């Protein structure tokens, strides 16, 4: 089986991940959200929920992000929530695609809009945990999809 580097846990559980895990951002619920989405990982019962409020220009003006589960899910949810404000849904979709691609293929030079999410690159060394990092992203994508289909 593939060998992993000796005790690289300080990488996986580095300062930025642990900061977001211990002190997650944007947890306050918002009322009258335009986009609401909740995703579960059925294999572990973990959960990530996002609420997004859009302003008159269709840009994100308020975000609520809550998650239950391991440090990676909680950190990823918090990190993702930081990247949303001020963006249009088109921009969010682009960030989502970039983030997903980066978790499977690495970042290359295209890191625009990923911010702290870049710290999750270390999760690529633990393939079974990639789905933890991506759970809030799935919530975001599903939320945007549902918003578009509702808006017709």
């Amino acid at each position, binding site marked *: 089986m593939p060998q992993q580097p000796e005790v690289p846990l300080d990488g*996986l559980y580095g300062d930025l991940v642990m900061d977001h895990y211990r002190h997650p951002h944007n947890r306050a619920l918002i009322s009258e959200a335009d986009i609401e989405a909740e995703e579960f990982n059925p294999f*572990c*019962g*973990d959960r990530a929920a996002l609420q997004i409020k859009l302003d008159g220009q269709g840009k994100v003006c308020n975000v609520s992000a809550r998650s239950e589960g391991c440090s990676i899910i909680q950190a990823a949810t918090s990190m993702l929530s930081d990247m949303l404000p001020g963006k249009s849904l088109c921009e969010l979709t682009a960030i989502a695609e970039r983030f997903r691609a980066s978790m499977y293929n690495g970042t290359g030079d295209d890191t625009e809009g990923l911010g702290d999410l870049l710290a999750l690159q270390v999760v690529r060394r633990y393939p079974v*945990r990639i789905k933890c990092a991506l759970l809030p992203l799935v919530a975001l994508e599903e939320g945007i999809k549902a918003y578009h289909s509702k808006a017709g």
Partner: protein
Amino acid sequence: MTTGDRTAAAAFDVEKVRDDFPILKQQVNGHPLVYLDNGATSQKPQSVIDAIVRYYTTTNANVHRGVHTLSQQATDGYEGARAKIRRFINAGDDREIIFTRNTTEGINLVAHSYARQHVGPGDDIIVSNMEHHSNIVPWQIVCEEKGANLRVVPIDDTGELLMDEYEKMLSPRTKLVSITHVSNALGTILPAAQIVSMAHAYGAPVLLDGAQAVPHMPVDMQELDCDFYAFSGHKLFGPTGIGILYGKSDLLEAMPPFMGGGDMIKSVTFEKTIYNDLPYKFEAGTPDIAGAIALGAAVDYVNNLGFDQITAHEEELLRYGTQALTSIAGVKLIGTAPHKAGILSFTMDNAHPHDIGTILDEQGIAIRTGHHCAQPVMLRFQIPATARASLAFYNTKEDIDALVKGIDRVLEVFG
């Protein structure tokens, strides 16, 4: 019964036993493998691996069909395995031993071929609060279809079944009781014989989910007097893809088939098909012949060690592990019933079970993390998940020591 060779009982040599399991010799992530995920699946002794290789190398042919030599040998091997398993669980008749894929399939067979025929609107099916999803969902499907009620016997804070509540729940409306013999998430050993006799007083048959019981203790169909007993081969040191459903022959005979196909019929015309006798009525299609033979080899292996030795060794390990984990500040054991088998489920104050699992894996320690397909248990204890170390007879105190050292590392990272 499988009480083992008493002359060997004094000489249980765990290192010698470990030599029989090639996988235990390997390194994982630069550390010797510490395999504590036996509740998910057990490792296989060389004799089981050899049985599979030998079957495909020298015997492979279809069963119950040809007159040629290999087909007869394959049939003898397959039916010989059935007889070994009948003796292993002390069933009365080989016809009561049905080869399935796993415990889940056995339970679904009973749900389809028994419960659907006997459960009607307003009837009750009783399960416990500590069932695996595979002993919940099939009954939910039947209850929804039939307008019946799924009743759930509660458990106390240690993980013991509340027998008074069970007694109260039983009634003439009870058409089936389906309860685990040993809890996969908590390790509790349930008073199965008592559960069965109480249900029988109301005329209700009982299915026991024995997936977590058969690797750890002798089970005796005559003593338990249960109507159905389901277990998986792969948790009993056999291969994946083969399992057993025991059923009392009078019940099985009255039940319609689960699946239709070859092997389960006597004759087929478009006007009328006559089903085969037991157990073949419930074994449609070519079975996992190699798997059945290898499960027979696994049963031989376990019999050779003997449950006297296995149980004594595992009880000592469980005692040692319980003491070790309860003495670590910040670790909480989930499932503290007085009678337990092989399971140490725990949570930590500041670390989610997945993070515990990753950090342990870095040190070559394999445990299960998550809800263990028993979400109602997690809800009962108000936790999202646990980390679960589950034992087999080849585990050692050194394995427990490694677990404790691994937990220390979790505490370093998560405090």
